[in-house]
């Protein structure tokens, strides 16, 4: 079934600025691990961030489980966002807080203000957080401050945090760009494993084409805001890659 459908998505950062996305359309299905590739500045990150409205689209439609989301505001928007988990390139953890609190912060969309103030999360949430931390292999770091961890470890906390939301879709914004190659592969493998286990589709903005081809089943190639390729990984070949990355070859 179609989890996400994007139709003719357009985005620009200011009313008079250039159009970053020039009409992108694609579909994400429930068992997809979708990759978005393309040269820098092609609009990959913008596309990802339009889905959960961290960036406001200037045109087009985004349908999440057949629901139009580009017009949502306030509480409706927050309900949408808590169903979509996001993993960031720079991890975006709360540095001064413990790993446990960081993972629990994924649950904020389900937590009231008073509980937030006293950080009193329900026991079920805590159990859930512990099992996620165990799954990503960080159980012994549970009370360590987030800034005491290495890059790879921090991203794993990010993974746990995103999955804490019990999301229906995972957005990955260059999750491995800040990690070295070996750790990158481990992290991507972990994400893919957990997403498959928990049956969560992923939409991944990725810079490293090799990783994309290795882990993802479908690929979109963007160039300068336009979609240049849309299909299963198997159909991607060197010629099409050259076309997408034409600018970068120089």
């Amino acid at each position, binding site marked *: 079934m179609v989890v996400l459908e994007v139709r003719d998505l357009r985005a620009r950062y200011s009313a008079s600025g250039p159009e970053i996305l020039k009409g992108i359309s694609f579909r994400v299905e429930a068992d997809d691990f979708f990759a978005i590739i393309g040269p820098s500045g092609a609009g990959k990150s913008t596309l990802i961030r339009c889905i959960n409205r961290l960036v406001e689209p200037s045109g087009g439609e985004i349908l999440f489980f057949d629901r139009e989301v580009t017009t949502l505001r306030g509480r409706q928007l927050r309900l949408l966002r808590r169903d979509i988990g996001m993993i960031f390139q720079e991890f975006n953890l709360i540095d001064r807080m413990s790993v446990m609190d960081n993972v629990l912060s994924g649950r904020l969309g389900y937590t009231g203000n008073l509980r937030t103030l006293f950080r009193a999360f329900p026991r079920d949430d805590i159990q859930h957080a*512990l099992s996620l931390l*165990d799954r990503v292999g960080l159980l012994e770091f549970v*009370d360590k401050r987030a800034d005491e961890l290495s890059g790879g470890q921090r991203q794993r906390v990010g993974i746990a945090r995103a999955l804490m939301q019990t999301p229906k879709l995972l957005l990955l914004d260059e999750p491995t760009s800040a990690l070295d190659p070996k750790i990158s592969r481990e992290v991507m493998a972990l994400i893919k494993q957990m997403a498959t286990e928990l049956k969560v589709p992923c939409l991944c903005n990725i810079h490293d084409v090799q990783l994309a081809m290795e882990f993802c089943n479908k690929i979109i190639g963007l160039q300068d805001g336009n979609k240049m390729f849309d299909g299963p990984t198997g159909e991607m070949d060197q010629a099409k890659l050259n076309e997408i990355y034409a600018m970068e070859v120089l």
Partner: protein
Amino acid sequence: MNRAMTPQPGTPQRQWRRFKYPGSLISYGIWLSILVFFAYTVEYLEIPLDRLLGMFERMGSTLANRYYPPDIEYIMDADYLEYVLETIQMAYLGALFGLLASVPLGWFGSFNMSPSRRYVYPAARLITMGCRAVHEMIWAILFVTIIGFGMLPGVLALMFFCTGFAGKLFAEEIEAIDMGPVDAMRASGANLFQIMLFGVFPQVRVAFTGIAIYTWDVSFRAATVVGFFGAGGMGWYLKRNILQIETERVAAILLSIIFLVLISEAISAWARARVMKMK
């Protein structure tokens, strides 16, 4: 909610508590004692919390009835304006002399450039701290007692205050410089004074100007009030009218003080922005 994520029955429940012994206990203990301290403070000072809200209401009505409308004509009077001019003069004289005194004090009081770390540095620091610790109003009262009423004690009080104020800031600025050029000059055989002039001063020049402007700001704000204790300037009018319970005139004087200080702040903010651009 995805069933795969809830803990299956039979898997061991892990224990994790937010409360950690002894860390959390100490933490909560400290918070509790802080709370108790403040509660005790309210008790000790006999602050009537229950009457507080009523007080604000009374404050509003007092302001509306007795302090409004402010007697603007009174402050447009030529005599008063003369006092205003004097206030401004006192302020910048005090700031000027204070800055002049605080340049050497700041130098001597900087750990890296002080001529002698064993004697001169602590002495300079002590003097600066002493000038700073004594409130400008205390300086004013002391000088008024020694010298009498008038603007001289005001200028002296502001001078001592500004010396302490700027001296500390200058010293901190000098301590923050890049020692590279200084070492280079030392290596070429320059004496301390030359090093200060050619190695240190160019680095701190812009920051010093900013500090000077800030000092003027503070000096002017204090100058408007030293007259209250007899040291010349608009403050004297304030005191007189408070004693005579001429509340509408007091309101006018307060407004004039606020107005002038705001203008002074605007000018110095502009000046500081210009200085920042020079960097």
